[in-house]
């Protein structure tokens, strides 16, 4: 029982990332009809927003310490961050410590801008082209974005830790009467799950309860009719691309303490997120979220020793096996809508 709970918890944070990325993918596909293979790169750029903010907060001035030597035997240049100089050592260190949460404030406008520029600058030229063309151009864009990040930040992962007060893990098992250490779960992963739920809720609320959202939903259902009413639906869809980019970016920012970011991290999530979208049902926002969490938890179960010894390699194929089963039994996915991607 404790192992069951443990793997459900483990699946939630990975499922959160899948759900957030898949949500953005579905938003873009549902509004603009574009299959965006650069969406994983947006997740990665979001993560590097956190790296950038951490770097900015760590900008330092150097003082020479004659008592210590560097690797060449010269007096050591000791770096002190400017924020520690401006706000005092303790406050400055605390600001640096909270660089990841602070990066959220930076990432939202940056990611919206990146999304809008991407859509207006490149992707809009491919609206009327076949999906294969869209996939090729967005995949190419993803590779370009990766290489740009690698040029500036290198190929190695960059440590971007959570605030020290939110590091460590909580013994869940004790709450439910299990032995100590039976169900340990990191605080930050819990925060990630709650954050993901909040973002998903905010996106749904925006679409459901605002006039802007209502027009977007109407446009998703019948773009031509909405246009004939004199509404500039293209402009609103462009904004939705920006919002989808921001959702992916925020997922990336908050993911950095879980695994140190590197230039390739978007690709690691991209293919699986597409499977999530297909399993959830093309164009279905609730389907994307449901499938994200479902596949995250299943993947977690498939990585247990019991599963890998019973069926070797199951941890690497479980998502695809489930995708095949779902598509055979429900060709439109779990919550797919009739008519979407069926022409």
């Amino acid at each position: 029982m404790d192992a069951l709970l443990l793997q459900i918890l483990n699946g939630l944070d990975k499922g959160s990332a899948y759900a957030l990325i898949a949500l953005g993918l579905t938003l873009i596909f549902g509004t603009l009809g574009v299959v965006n293979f650069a969406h994983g790169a947006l997740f990665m750029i979001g993560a590097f927003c956190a790296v950038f903010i951490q770097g900015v907060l760590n900008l330092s001035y150097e003082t020479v310490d004659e008592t210590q030597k560097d690797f060449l035997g010269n007096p050591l240049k000791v770096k002190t961050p400017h924020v520690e100089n401006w706000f005092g050592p303790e406050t400055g260190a605390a600001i640096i410590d909270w660089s990841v949460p602070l990066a959220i404030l930076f990432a939202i406008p940056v990611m919206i801008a990146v999304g809008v520029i991407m859509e207006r600058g490149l992707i809009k030229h491919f609206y009327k082209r076949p999906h294969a063309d869209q996939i090729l151009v967005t995949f190419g864009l993803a590779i370009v974005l990766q290489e740009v990040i690698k040029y500036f930040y290198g190929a190695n992962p960059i440590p971007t830790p959570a605030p020290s007060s939110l590091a460590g893990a909580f013994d869940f098992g004790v709450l439910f009467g299990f032995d100590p250490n039976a169900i340990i779960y990191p605080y930050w992963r819990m925060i990630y799950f709650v954050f993901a739920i909040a973002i998903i809720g905010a996106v749904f609320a925006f679409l459901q309860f605002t006039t802007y959202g209502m027009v977007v939903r109407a446009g998703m259902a019948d773009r031509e009719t909405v246009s004939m009413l004199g509404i500039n639906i293209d402009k609103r869809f462009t904004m939705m691309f920006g919002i989808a980019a921001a959702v992916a970016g925020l997922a990336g920012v908050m993911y950095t303490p879980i695994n140190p970011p590197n230039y390739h991290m978007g690709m690691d999530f991209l293919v699986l997120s597409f499977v999530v979208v297909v399993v959830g049902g093309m164009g279905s926002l609730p389907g994307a979220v449901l499938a994200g969490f479902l596949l995250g938890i299943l993947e977690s179960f498939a990585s247990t020793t019991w599963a890998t010894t019973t069926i070797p390699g199951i941890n690497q194929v479980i998502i695809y096996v489930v995708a095949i089963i779902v598509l055979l039994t429900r060709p439109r996915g779990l919550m797919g809508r009739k008519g979407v991607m069926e022409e």
Partner: protein
Amino acid sequence: MSRIELSRRSMLKAGAAGLATPTVFAGAAWSFTNDPQGGAVTLGFNVPQTGPYADEGADELRAYELAVEHLNGGGDGGMINTFSSKTLDGAGILGQKVEFVTGDTQTKGDAARASAKSMIEKDGAIMITGGSSSSTAIAVQGLCQEAGVIFMAGLTHSNDTTGKDRKANGFRHFFNGYMSGAALAPVLANRYGTDRKAYHLTADYTWGWTQQESIANSTEALGWETINNVLTPLASTDFSAYIAPVLNSGADVLVLNHYGGNMVNSLTNAVQFGLRDREANGKNFEIVVPLYSRLMARGAGENVKGIFGSTNWHWSLPDDGSKAFVRSFGTKYGFPPSQAAHTCYVQTLLYADAVNRAGSFNPCAVVEALEGFQFDGLGNGPTLYRADDHQCFKDVLVVQGKENPTSEFDILEVVEVTPRAQVEYPSDHPMFGGPEASLGSCNPGA
């Protein structure tokens, strides 16, 4: 590229020379692949320039460029000044200017073989060196054996490279999984006691398998029990599903047989799950990373603090050779070299010196010159290139993540220099292919 065309005349000439020459030099008289022409010799540096190990590959390339500069008489000479063999004089190799071409392994066996093949066939490389992974090293070593060129391995730590997959044309300066186990286990037993239960997470490929076997054997010999070994796919990025059950498994030590990005993520995940803050079996829970790379360990940030591992070389070593290399490299590039850079630089000098001593670029003559070669002054103390398996035997460093680093490079500290005698093993050791393992015969190609 200088292709070797075997004509009847050249065959007769070579055959006559072979008959008239003592056996030990016979190889030198035969034609061989990419015999240097026109006053220059081309070396092929095959390193990961793209992919997850690109930074390590870039550091290897820096070291190779420095080695070429020193071989051609540029710079301050680096370790040429401290090398016990004195054949290198800054006049290239055998009087030929050293040039180089580079290839991108992408840390993929197929890509590494393709780039090595291209450098041999199109660019005329007479020696291939580099790499940052055992699977690519084994793949390229096999290719070089077939092509008739020397392969001086870069960073490869699997026992198999000089074990069951050893080749006559291949040489490894870097240490291996067995040596890590033999060096690390006594330190672990000393620090953590002999009554420990270890849980291994192991990267599912040749390096992970042999390292896990080596560490398990060495620690079990000192009283530890291995209670589980879970193989993790090389492409894994999140190890939470593998780490979460560890605390409830009865283990009190987690051994991470991971390297590079795998190591960074698995160690980060393990610390996140609070393993180091907990107790198991009445003892503090401990984590061990048997193979450290200072360059890659930076990615794990503060999580490496206090964690034991082993390494082939470290820039803080006080011997003259290490100091000379760090000075050359640091002055040129502004930061200290990695262990990958060190082994690549050393391999280049060793190859050049072997050619000079053999008096020929013929791979078979170079093999004879390197086999059983004993040297010093290259940063690891007195070292032997064993003839039986082409593995270097030297001291091994046990390191620990530094608690109070003074700079971004000051991540590891050397806690023990394990003497060479402690990490030696017979060449027919079961972990290295047993009695069946064979170098085969040297192939000069052409």
